[in-house]
């Protein structure tokens, strides 16, 4: 990555600015890569016939309040396998 060097700054300040710029560039690139992976995964699953649904927040809150992880998983499983899906279908 090309990072400009400023003649008005000291070598230390230049090095610090390069480090900060690299950090942000790295974060952006990482996010971009993650977005692509997520999109590929969702497109592939949608092509195979799977669908995602967006549920209302109270549904998620109610599941979060369940006492055990097993109960939470069971509730999510029930939602995912219900004959009539809950929520709004998300197009992929």
């Amino acid at each position, binding site marked *: 990555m090309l990072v400009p060097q400023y003649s008005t700054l000291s070598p230390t300040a230049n090095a610090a600015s390069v480090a900060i710029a690299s950090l942000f560039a790295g974060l952006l690139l990482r996010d971009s890569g993650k977005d692509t992976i997520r999109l590929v995964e969702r497109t592939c699953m949608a*092509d195979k016939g799977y*669908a995602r649904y967006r549920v209302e927040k109270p549904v998620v809150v109610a599941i979060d309040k369940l006492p055990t992880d097993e109960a939470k998983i069971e509730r999510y499983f029930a939602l995912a396998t219900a004959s009539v899906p809950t929520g709004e*279908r998300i197009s992929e």
Partner: protein
Amino acid sequence: MKKVLLAILVVSAPTMAADQRKTTLQPDASYVLVEIGKLEGAMVKGFDNPGSLTIAPYDSTTHDIVAAQRIVLFNKPVAKSKLSRQYVVKVQPATWVIEGASGTAFSLGSKTFVVHPGEIVDLGVMKPEIDWLDGEGPKSMAGSMLSTAFFGSMKPKQVRPVRIKWTRRQPTSLPLPASIGERAVTPVTLIDGATFDNNLGGLINRFAGRSSRPSGDPASPSSS
């Protein structure tokens, strides 16, 4: 400044007008001829980029492509217009697949075609298009500038893969390159059903987009 720009335009005008590159075809070799349309509105509404197409030999036994012989059609067109570019590329006789276009691999379902020895196969006109969902579209210039100012990126909120709108050669298409001469040109026979790994490493789709998923209806539970 205006005079300098004008001088550059005047000097470059003859090369811009001469949009037909001189190529010599080997008499016994096989070639693929294709016109590739521009990709419109990928980043901002009203702006376009030259489309690209990736073809590769297809191994129907392993259901994968032969990456070493992959050809990317993007540079050095033999002819170009405001809407498209035309390419003639030498290929080995084999079964070939449309592997991808403009950054998207058609690994979920693409089309193959056979090139016989000494044959020139005309793929027709392939126009890459963004496979938007219903109600989506490219950002306006103003929206794009605002998002750049506030979020530091012109990238669309939802990046969508590309699909191909395919037609056979039309009367309005670019004329056949003069280098073909008297040689016969065979219109392509595209065969459905090629699937392969996402070797391009970017987005994936089907050749004709999400509307060509098995049920044909992107809104139905079995297809979207």
